[in-house]
């Protein structure tokens, strides 16, 4: 029955590692999941009801800190500067009212977490497809996040010109 003891020990060790990782998640992994959540929240289906639009816009705003600063400048599109969670929510709502649908993904993400693990900078590629439009929007974006009340929130989001 020696092998059974070894098996039990292995199971206990595996459970211990899993529990440790669940209780002390790697900040980079948490931020990645957070950004995936933001992309999902920013995306929306066509023909959404008024309530769904409102809830969706609020979900986007919940990823941001109260004093978030957003600067979006995509070539061929109007520049947008937004400050504060309220403005983000209004903008998300306005987008849901004007566009027929939107799919957002962040395919390439590089994250640098600060030494104190309280802030991080993510360089990512934003890929957005507006329903009914032929061309996809592709843009480099820099996101600054801060751990506020145990949650990683966006404090700054700005588009970057890859080719200057």
């Amino acid at each position: 029955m020696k092998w059974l003891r070894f098996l039990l020990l292995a199971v206990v060790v595996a459970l211990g590692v899993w529990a440790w990782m669940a209780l002390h998640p790697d900040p980079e992994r948490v931020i990645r999941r957070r950004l995936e959540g933001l992309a999902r929240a920013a995306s929306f289906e066509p023909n959404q009801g008024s309530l769904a639009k409102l809830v969706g816009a609020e979900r986007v705003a919940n990823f941001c800190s109260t004093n978030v600063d957003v600067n979006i400048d995509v070539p061929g599109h109007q520049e947008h500067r937004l400050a504060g969670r309220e403005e983000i929510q209004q903008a998300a709502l306005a987008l849901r009212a004007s566009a027929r649908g939107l799919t957002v993904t962040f395919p390439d993400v590089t994250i640098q977490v600060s030494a104190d693990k309280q802030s991080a900078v993510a360089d990512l590629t934003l890929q957005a497809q507006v329903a009914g439009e032929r061309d996809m929007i592709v843009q480099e974006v820099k996101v600054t996040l801060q751990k506020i009340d145990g949650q990683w929130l966006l404090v700054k989001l700005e588009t970057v010109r890859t080719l200057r």
Partner: protein
Amino acid sequence: MTETKSGPSQELRSASWLRILALGRNPKTTLIRAAVLAVVCVVVFKAVLLPVRVQGISMTPTYADGSVHFVNRLAYLWHEPQRGDVVGIRLTPPNGWSAPHIMYFKRIIGLPGETVAFENGRVLVNGLILEEPYQKGPCDWNADAVTLGANEYFVVGDNRSMAKEEHVFGKAERSRIVGKALL
């Protein structure tokens, strides 16, 4: 009058031929070969020759919207990018050897240290007109001269008929050039 016999022995023979055709005479060797081939394919197409699907019209007529090509990541291991090369440029800063999922697909027209300008649709490199046989449509672009740094290349698409404001072009850092377009 001829008669064909289709007894159990013939069925057995055709079944074994099918097996040989599908798995080879030695199934174990075939399995190993298939596994090696799969690993080689994954390594080659994930790390060396990156398949890319062109989206947009900025590289027409050279590369049509929707066409599939490859970016060779080993192209610049032994020499630096050359003028006229079509290259893949990553949007995010390099992160080890990991391959980007999205790239710009542009042509190099300016090399490090050079000055590039657009004047009435013609490209001027260090004040001299650059001959561009790949550029077919009419162009009326004007842009101030830009001097490139030691690790910078000037890249632009071949389709200069489109509005300059809708066309992404400019200086690209060497570290962002992923590789050279193949085919």
